[in-house]
């Protein structure tokens, strides 16, 4: 398994593309700022959202019971899955029982987390992803690289090449409108023919037993209202107590994600349409374990807006695939080590700890604090490379001894000035893609002692 740094090194080979990725996501972040600053109550909204989620987490069992009771009364079938395998099996059982072959799916990060498509493929069942970005990456046999903008790692000529191959569009026609129209024709055929629609859930409401799905394209609605079976998949943390709480979250979600005032469609599902079957699969997959960790349970408040991705200087310059997981970015870096600390030990280190993620988070998750706490946990558990550990120990040794620190600083300045080849070599990771700084003539301490009497 390659780690974040190695994978990022491959991503940044193409400098122009890296810069485009960086600037485009920063532009999305700026749109988020504009939308947030348009509401004087923005900080209050974040506080409410955070408190509602904290309250819900602390009453999760009773709200889940209420949700299940109401959903059953609405005529919805409720399933419980302890882990990803059970989630996938439940869905496959429904497909098998009804002999279904035509399946459409709208975006659901949970099904990515559970690798549902891959599992169903192995059982000989094909699923068509219907979000445009997800369809593009599905054609290319790639996972999404961003939870809101699945194909953000691609340029329009890549999409054009892919569509030429699979949808027989004109070679070299890179016009986004032309390409989107081609996908529209292709996917409308899939919607009309579909027997089963799988969706995610943005919010589930305990007091009514219903759930809300948000899209801009309308793909969740096209699928669910055309098909005779609808399966909605949710991690249990999607629950909120009341319908009135939806106002707080819907006001925050799209503004944080893309800077839109709201998504085009905020669809509220309660009962199946006449003749339709509606299923909800409620998944744990490690979440109840996170709930028990005081330092990390806050991450369960996440509403998957990806504001932390767009603002992160490391994500923007390393791309989603460098995180080797379904949910990348800063939030992925604090969620994934819960599932597999060894496999994801690199992720909490893929951060400058600048704290921008925590500042934009609409539900006030302490993301950068958790990144820092994870570094300590993972080091204690022995999941951190020995070299990093030795360097850190060395660093601590020097920093804890003022005289040694002063001597080291002076030596480093001397080396940089007179023996630059000592640091300008390949093995020094700080010399990769960087010029070493010009050594200052004196340290701050020397300058301070000299100047304080003036």
């Amino acid at each position, binding site marked *: 398994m390659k780690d974040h740094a190695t994978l990022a090194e491959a991503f940044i080979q193409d400098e122009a593309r890296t810069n485009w990725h960086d600037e485009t996501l920063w*532009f*999305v972040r700026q749109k988020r700022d504009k939308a947030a600053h348009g509401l*004087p109550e923005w900080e209050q909204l974040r506080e*409410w959202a955070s408190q*509602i989620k904290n*309250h819900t*987490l602390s*009453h*999760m*069992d009773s709200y*889940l019971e209420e949700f299940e009771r109401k959903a059953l009364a609405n005529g919805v079938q409720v399933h*419980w899955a*302890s882990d990803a395998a*059970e989630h996938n099996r439940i869905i496959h059982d429904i497909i098998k029982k009804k002999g279904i072959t035509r399946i459409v799916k709208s975006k659901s990060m949970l099904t990515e987390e559970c690798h549902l498509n891959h599992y169903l493929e192995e059982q000989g069942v094909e699923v068509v992803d219907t979000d*445009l*970005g997800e369809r*593009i990456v599905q054609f290319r046999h790639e996972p999404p690289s961003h939870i809101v903008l699945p194909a*953000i790692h*691609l340029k*329009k000529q890549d*999409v054009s090449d892919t569509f030429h191959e699979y949808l027989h569009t004109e070679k070299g026609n890179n016009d*986004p*409108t032309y390409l*989107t*129209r081609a996908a*529209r024709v292709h996917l*409308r055929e899939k*919607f*009309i023919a579909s027997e089963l629609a799988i969706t995610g859930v943005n919010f589930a409401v305990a007091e*009514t037993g219903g759930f809300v799905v948000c899209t*801009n*394209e*309308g*793909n969740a*609605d*096209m699928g669910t*209202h*055309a098909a005779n079976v609808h399966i909605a998949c949710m991690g249990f943390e999607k629950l909120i107590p009341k*319908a009135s709480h939806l106002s*707080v979250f819907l*006001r925050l979600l799209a503004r944080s994600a893309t800077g839109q*005032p*709201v*998504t*085009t*469609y*905020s*669809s*509220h*599902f*309660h*009962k199946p*349409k006449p003749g339709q079957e509606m299923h909800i699969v*409620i998944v*744990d997959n490690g979440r*109840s*374990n996170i*709930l*028990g960790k005081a330092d990390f*349970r806050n991450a369960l408040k996440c509403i998957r807006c990806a504001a932390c991705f767009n603002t992160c200087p490391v994500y923007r310059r390393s791309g989603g695939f460098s995180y080797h997981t379904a949910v990348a970015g800063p939030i992925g870096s604090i969620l994934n080590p819960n599932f597999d600390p060894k496999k994801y030990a690199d992720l909490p280190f893929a951060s400058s700890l600048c704290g921008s993620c925590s500042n934009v988070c609409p539900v006030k998750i302490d993301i950068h604090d958790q990144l820092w706490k994870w570094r300590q946990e993972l080091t204690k558990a022995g999941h951190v490379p020995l070299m990093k550990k030795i360097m850190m120990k060395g660093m601590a040794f020097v920093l804890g001894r003022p005289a040694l620190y002063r001597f080291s600083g002076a030596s480093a300045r001397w080396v940089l000035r007179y023996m630059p080849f000592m640091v300008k070599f390949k093995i020094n990771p700080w010399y990769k893609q960087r010029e070493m700084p010009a050594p200052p003539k004196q340290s701050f301490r020397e300058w301070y002692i000299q100047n304080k009497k003036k």
Partner: protein
Amino acid sequence: MVYSKQKEMSSRDQIFSAIRKNKPAAVPGVTTDLSVVIGYPDLLSQFSTVLTAIGGSCREVASAEEAKQFIASLDKGTFVIDTTAGHPSGLAHLSPAALASVDTAIIRGGVAVAENGSIWVTENEMVNRLLPFIAQQLILIINEKDLVPTMHQAYERISINETGFGVFIAGPSKTADIEQSLVIGAHGPCGMVAVIVRES
């Protein structure tokens, strides 16, 4: 079958017992004081500005009669379904394939939200759940008195479970999944018009 049911039961119990064991100490609920929430001096102009910015369009008319005349003047194509003029028989059971050729759907909307240009539409009004999404063009008729400043007031006015399905619709369907270029008309309507009737 019995076996799988038992298994599901045990997963449910497992999940609940883990949650009960691990959940944090009770945190009190939240009361939202709406006095801090933004207001707009002119709801109609705010609604219209936002809806236009997100790719929809907006027309105010003085009366239901004028709304009819305005809609009659629009290019609506050949296959029009108007659920405001009494429910066309069989619409609820019209197949997706048949609905795919609908050029224009005309539907009555409920509460409309000034801050984001969205309109609440219920299953009662759309008759067929697929209709507002599959039509090439969507026209929603609303009353000016149903305009509210924000989503907070909107949720005070509606019951989300009044019907089996309801949706806030804000403009036409759209995507920016190809290099962040905005394209109006992803899978659903390529155009969306809100007709706002001033008198009720």
